[in-house]
């Protein structure tokens, strides 16, 4: 008898209600900042948990960051890893792109927003590090499937508008990692209601980078002492130390062509 809607609700009202619902859910959570620096893209989340991540590796040059409901964005992260790994396995690793994944996420979020009983209460960033900062790509996706191609800096979550406004004034291309992280943390620590800035130490942050100087897998988490030094004003450290031992193989899907430093055989006949 009571199946379906008892009263008429206009599509405009329905969409607005859903959007309000999603926005409220997202605003409750702590924020995430994604920003470019000279050697890559940095992801900074206020997240005291060591195991429930808001930032994750998707593929060789692609990472994911999210705010909102953990189970929902975790579901999307896993789907993204499956998408990327299956695509790279079927074609080549170089055929997996952030743009393709952002499109797939956009379709999924859009479909859920209009067709499911409730929208996803999430906002996500899919970023891909390029050979130089000009080629970096940062896509921001909202709960309704809208995609924005962002330049340089994105803030998501609770007071993201104020954070983004403050940070955009100060962000410029070519920051060192230390400068970028200090800027992001200052943005996250700022109290939008006008109170004093909070003190966000390394323990309450989740930080990762896509480091273009690394070969193959560029994603790297930064924590502990290195994060402490990068965030400290006195410490001269301005980037993560290069890894002396990098990936043992090159970014090719075919095992035959992935040995490092393997020149073509000079005389193969």
């Amino acid at each position, binding site marked *: 008898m009571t199946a379906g809607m008892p009263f008429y609700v206009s599509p405009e009202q329905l969409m607005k209600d859903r959007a309000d619902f999603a926005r409220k859910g997202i605003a409750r959570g702590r924020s995430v900042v994604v920003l470019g620096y000279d050697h890559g893209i940095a992801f900074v989340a206020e997240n005291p948990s060591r195991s429930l991540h808001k930032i994750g590796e998707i593929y060789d040059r692609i990472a994911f960051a999210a705010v909102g409901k953990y189970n929902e964005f975790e579901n999307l992260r896993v789907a993204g890893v499956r998408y990327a*790994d*299956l695509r790279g396995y079927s074609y080549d690793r170089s055929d997996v792109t952030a743009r393709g994944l952002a499109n*797939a*996420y956009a379709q*999924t979020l*859009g479909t859920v927003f209009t067709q499911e009983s409730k929208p996803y209460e999430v906002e996500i960033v899919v970023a891909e590090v390029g050979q130089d900062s000009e080629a970096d790509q940062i896509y921001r996706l909202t709960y309704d499937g809208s995609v924005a191609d962002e330049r340089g800096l994105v803030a998501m979550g609770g007071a993201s508008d104020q954070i983004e406004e403050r940070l955009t004034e100060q962000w410029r291309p070519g920051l060192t990692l230390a400068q970028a992280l200090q800027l992001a943390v200052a943005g996250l620590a700022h109290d939008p209601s006008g109170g004093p800035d909070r003190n966000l130490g390394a323990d309450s942050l989740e930080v990762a980078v896509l480091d273009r100087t690394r070969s193959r897998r560029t994603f790297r988490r930064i924590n502990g002492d290195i994060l402490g030094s990068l965030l400290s004003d006195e410490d001269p450290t301005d980037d993560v130390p290069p890894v002396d031992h990098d990936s043992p193989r090159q970014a090719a899907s075919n095992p*035959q062509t992935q*040995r490092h430093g393997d020149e073509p055989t*000079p005389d193969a006949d």
Partner: protein
Amino acid sequence: MSPVADGGGLPAAYLRTGSSSFTDFVAEHEPHLIPSRRGLPPGATIDAPHGTTIVTVTFDGGVLMAGDRRATMGNIIANRDMEKVFATDEFSVVGIAGTAGLAIELVRLFQVELEHYEKIEGTLMSLEGKANRLASMIRGNLGMAMQGLSVVPVFAGYDHQHGLGRIFSYDVTGGCYEEHDHHSVGSGSLFARGAMKKLYRPDMTSDEAVRVAVEALWDAADDDSATGGPDVGRRIWPTVALVTADGARFIPDDTVAPVVDAIITHRHGNAGGRRDGADA
């Protein structure tokens, strides 16, 4: 069938809560991509390139794996610079003997399997976990193996829990066995094993282990026509990979070449590599 519905969103299976195994996900969602799912018509046999000899040996602080570069098809040399030893993740390597095409596809799947788990779970799989995953893939290939398309890998990696390099061998039914000190698979393995028995010393350095492995491959090539010796003319050297607590890496060709030269000098007028006096 396209692996990803282009233009559409992520297929529902992607969003389903499931295991952290890429192979299980592919088997359910895109089964045609699993190498062992392709059966041959009953009774059919085909000629396909075969990879030959792999040797692996432990040393103080890790484990080494080396392979010759030859693939054969009957009496024909199908490929003379094939890679048969692969880094499967940061801390493990696999070497393959048997049907080359299937084996390489299996390695490719295994590499994605390990990385997929690492990304989904946020942690590395244990060394025994990796060895067991490989066993289940080999087990899945039994039907093909019975039609002559067998794949016999040997797996080695650094065990952080115990602080040492470990070796795992397999049979075609997916049996997984831990080997101690050294092991070899492939058509020249009998000769390589004999050589390693005589050359192996506990607590060797990695340099000594390189020499032992390359010399064992030399002995395999000496007596097995399917195993390729170092090709001095074309400068094709065995693939040599090391795994230590710092990770897996390949030894560059210009480090392997002098080892080969030293063996050639030593074997001059001493074809069997007899040790006398000081080298005994």
